[in-house]
């Protein structure tokens, strides 16, 4: 069992409270996932031409400024507990290739920051100061591990591509074979987690040129198992449940925000939820939000 949440703010005036709402939503899913927790927050705070990379190292005394200094004189690094957010000019892909081998990449892109760690959702949220974070949207995960170790690296969200990440409630049954299939096609993996396979699969399909919606629809055919996914993108997020809807999900929308959660509990404290349209996403249907509008496709 795991819990997943997502929040997209339609009203930019709410962006200063994104983190506090996301924290409350994560805590609402504590019983579904007390092992570890993580979240992705999107905010456009970079100069033009800069990329943002979230890094992790277990050593609290790790020399993060040296990482930035070795990359570029204009690079900046902001340490946040065991994580650090690197801001540097250039494409994320080029920067990733020049990072020291002993740091782990949690996320990369223009707007995404990913923080994840072992512990109760409230502890993890407090460790990284989630409540004070601003942004346009975010997704989160609380984990109750069933098939791989409980570590920072095994926690969700998993980065799938620039500004694209995935959280998963459920378990996949064909992930070993699918991982081999993806490795043969050039994808690399950092854990033995089934959800990472889903993230890499989405990245692979999008690398083939498919838009997110089509990549997810291809996943309906290729991913065997049960799942609810939430996928964060630069301009919104998407939700997909497996074809027989083994895992729960609730969606809610007001004029100010769109939210999803495994259970209503995590939506109960959102402002104006009493008047929100609340519904259950149908199985096998991709729901996505962006700056444009809600889209829905079977």
């Amino acid at each position, binding site marked *: 069992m795991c819990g997943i949440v997502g929040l997209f703010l339609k009203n930019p005036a709410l962006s200063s409270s994104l983190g506090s709402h996301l924290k409350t939503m994560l805590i609402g899913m504590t019983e579904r996932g007390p092992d570890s927790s993580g979240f992705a927050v999107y905010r456009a705070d970079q100069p033009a031409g800069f990329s943002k990379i979230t890094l992790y190292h277990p050593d609290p005394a790790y020399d993060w400024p040296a990482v930035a200094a070795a990359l570029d004189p204009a690079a900046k690094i902001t340490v946040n507990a065991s994580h650090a957010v690197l801001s540097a000019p250039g494409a994320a892909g080029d920067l990733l290739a020049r990072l020291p081998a002993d740091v782990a990449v949690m996320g990369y892109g223009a707007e995404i920051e990913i923080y994840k760690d072992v512990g109760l959702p409230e502890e993890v949220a407090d460790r990284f100061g989630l409540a004070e974070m601003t942004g346009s949207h975010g997704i989160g995960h609380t984990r109750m591990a069933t098939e791989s170790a409980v570590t920072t690296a095994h926690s969700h969200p998993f980065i799938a591509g620039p500004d694209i990440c995935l959280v998963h409630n459920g378990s996949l049954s064909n992930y070993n074979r699918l991982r081999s299939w993806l490795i043969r096609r050039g994808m690399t993996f950092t854990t033995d987690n089934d959800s990472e396979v889903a993230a890499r699969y989405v990245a692979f399909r999008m690398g083939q040129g498919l838009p997110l919606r089509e990549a997810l629809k291809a996943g309906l055919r290729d991913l065997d198992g049960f799942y609810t996914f939430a996928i964060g993108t630069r301009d919104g997020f998407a939700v997909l449940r497996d074809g027989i*809807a083994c895992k*729960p999900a*609730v969606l809610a929308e007001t004029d100010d925000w769109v939210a999803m959660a495994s*259970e*209503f509990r995590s*939506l*109960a404290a959102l402002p104006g939820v009493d008047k929100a349209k*609340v519904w*259950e996403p149908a*199985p096998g249907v991709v729901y996505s939000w962006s700056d444009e509008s809600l889209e829905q496709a079977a």
Partner: protein
Amino acid sequence: MNATADPVIVDLAEASVRDLNQRLHDLDDDGPRDWRVINPRGQHAIAVGLKYPAKIVIDGPVGYYCGGMNMEAEIVVNGHCGWGVGENIMSGIVRVRGNASESAAATGRAGLVVIEGDASSRCGISMKGVDIVVGGSVGHMSAFLAQAGRLVVCGDAGPDLGASIYEAIIYVRGTVESLGTDCIEKDMTDDHRAALGELLARAGIDADPADFRRYGSARQLYHFKVDNADAY
């Protein structure tokens, strides 16, 4: 008995669900009959395991298993509910004024579950005698393995309705996307229409029994087929 007093109000922003349920379990003939629960905020297992004919009105959305194992009580949810509302209900009434998520009234033995909105997938899964009336539509695999009782759907039914059904009866007013294994349409007799009319009236749902079609078991899965002996 205390039938005319104001309802007892329990605020779940203050009290725990465990406290509420303990108070409801401790009821006896002298206890208050009318209860109002506020700020449920989607919490699970609200008003589960009641054994006394009290009326519990819950103002707002509830989580999983609300009204589960209910005996005698009347439970009304003024909101949506999560998975397994009225699960294994034994008697009494559970009424949801919004929509219900998956597995509504699963394994229910008797009593009545009314969903005034839509119910999601697996509504009435393995039902064993409960009557379920859904004002809207139901999702896929509803009445899966249904053994006894009646499922009434005033809207449409999703795929695989009544898969592997035993002796439960299904009435659907709208369209059925597909019937599950061993589920077939059956004749609607005057007796069925009269019984359905009585059930709809009891559920407080305004619908004409003449508009419904009846579905049930083809009874082809009950026994081993000797034609398959060669497979072993």
